């Protein structure tokens, strides 16, 4: 039976890891990316997502050296995003070991690119990041391209294109550790065929329990909880498992092996 996934999401600002609150620009610097990768690898997490959140804004590419160093620490799948806007970008990331490429601006500016990428690399390599912002009761697609895009219309249009997975982040709950946007998750899961990773708002194990009990989600993303509280992915998994959801629970920690470096 397929297990539900708990995916730590690492946001990178081009230099080190940061954590935002409601996607505001004054992100909090949280630390070095290698130590985060090693800690999560030691915990046998299901998967990792690493996103350079300012790459597009700053018109640069994600630093491949940093990405390679992180992937080298991980023996589980890693999704990488940030400033990806060409087939070459995707090729470079997959070549250094990324399993999935996370796209955002391209899905807005040129959704045909999704099909192009999928036709070469397969749908499953393409993950799209959908950031949902609730304003006065309605949902919009958050973007920094100055566009007003009603969310559900957008998702409907998107289903005609090829991709493997959606990371659905609630902007309002991002970094607030006040629980997930259940209504949003339920709506989006109903609209698409692909797996959805719910993200934004998880601050304690009970929030995750609530999410899995009240939606049909099978994967969840989290960041703040792992930086700022005593809870680890294992605590989250145990909580979700307690309501009957199948989880992959491994209690043995992996000891850091720094022997294997450049091959």
């Amino acid at each position, binding site marked *: 039976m397929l297990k539900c996934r708990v995916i730590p999401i690492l946001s990178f600002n*081009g*230099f*080190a890891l940061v954590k935002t609150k409601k996607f505001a620009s*004054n992100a*909090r*610097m*949280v*630390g*070095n990316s*290698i*130590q*985060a990768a*090693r*800690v999560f690898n*030691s*915990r046998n997490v299901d998967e990792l997502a690493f996103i350079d959140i300012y790459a597009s804004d700053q018109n640069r590419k994600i*630093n491949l*050296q*940093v990405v390679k*160093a992180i992937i080298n620490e991980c023996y589980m799948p890693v999704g990488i995003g940030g400033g990806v806007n060409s087939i070459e970008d995707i090729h470079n990331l997959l070549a250094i070991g990324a399993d999935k490429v996370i796209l955002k601006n391209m899905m807005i500016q040129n959704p045909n690119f999704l099909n192009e990428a999928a036709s070469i690399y397969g749908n499953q390599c393409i993950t799209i990041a959908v950031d949902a912002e609730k304003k006065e009761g309605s949902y919009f697609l958050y973007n920094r391209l100055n566009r007003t895009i009603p969310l559900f219309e957008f998702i409907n249009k998107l289903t005609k294109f090829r991709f493997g997975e959606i990371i659905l982040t609630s902007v309002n709950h991002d970094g607030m550790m006040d629980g997930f946007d259940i209504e949003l998750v339920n709506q989006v899961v109903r609209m698409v065929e692909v797996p959805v990773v719910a993200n934004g708002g998880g601050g304690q194990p009970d929030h995750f329990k609530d999410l899995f009990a009240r939606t049909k989600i099978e994967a969840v993303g989290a960041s703040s909880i*792992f*930086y*700022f*509280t*005593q809870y*680890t992915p*294992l605590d989250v998994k145990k909580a979700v498992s307690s309501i009957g959801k199948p989880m992959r629970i491994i209690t*043995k*920690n992996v*000891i*850091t092996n*720094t022997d294997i*470096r*450049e091959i």
Partner: protein
Amino acid sequence: MLTSIRYCRKCLFPETKPDLFFDRKGICSACKAAESKFINVDWEKREKDFFTIINKFKLGKDEIGYDCLIPVSGGKDSTYQAYFMKVVCGMNPLCVCFETTRETDLGRKNLENISKLGIDVIHFRKNYSAYKSMVIEGFKRVGDEMWPNHLGIFTIPILVAVKFKIKLVIWGENPQQEYGGPWESIENYSLTRNWMEEFGGLLGNRIQDMIGVDGLTTRDLTPYFYPSDQELKDAGLVSIFLGHYFFWDARKQLELIEKHGFSVKQDGPVEGTYINYENLDEEMHGLHDYLKFVKYGFGRATDHACIDIRNHRLTREEGLKLVKQYDGKYPHKAIKAFIKYSGLTKTKIDQVIDSYTNPILFKMNTDGSFARDFKGNLIKNYQIK
């Protein structure tokens, strides 16, 4: 091509420092917090609040018991706290010291000095091998060989407070300036585990993540498990920061305790900085500081210069000069000590340090290794402005 890093207009903290924010004028949050000490604070009222609080716990000379607990390291701040609570406030403190990794002679002397002030001190000697396993794993996994020490200095004093039923815990300067206030606002406040995980420098690693390292079991790690929020509540623990109620002036405090037996380093500054009165107790502190430098581009000398700048003892230019001279040098002494302690080879240690060295901040050779000068120091790819 040089990397451009933004620096605080007032001090020398870079934007790369974790948990630091800049306002619109380019002033960092640490400077703003320090500034608030000089203006808009009714220190008289705060002093009053402080004595109101401690009088709720103070025991009389005819009573048996400790009325407050002070976590100490033997360093200047905690020595001052101990002195202040015992001699100035007339309390009966129990001091608790979590043994550091490798104590220096000076550290030992200064810790003894606290007991000479007429205070009982519990010096917790930890399980050497369990701790050492965590030192080495902490070094490899999160680039901080002092990892278990950060955990211990918070956890053990709180555990003792709970067990000994000492409700009042006295801390020094408040790193997160927002906490403090009169009795009403702090009476139910204790530093919870969450606080420690967020602000204690644990770099995302948790005690439960150490289970299994070199066969360590939960039982082996007993003293490192922080009491639960409920246990803290049941024990009625209350934490206060002296720095909230009194204007914190580290240099003045140092002058005072030097008159009461505290010794500074006589043979030059501590490795990695320009001063001789901080981090005296730990032989390998230079490595911890250096790891911070390779990750974020600033080291202990920067920390000290910023404090001196904020306390108006140095101008920014003077601070900058000292930083350029002392900051981020390869810590030969600490590395030597770490080789001896850990059994790891220098090559291995350097390999781990390199894995944490930020390639955006430091120059690299064409073969992928980091460029160094003849003394083994990294070459910066940025300029402090």
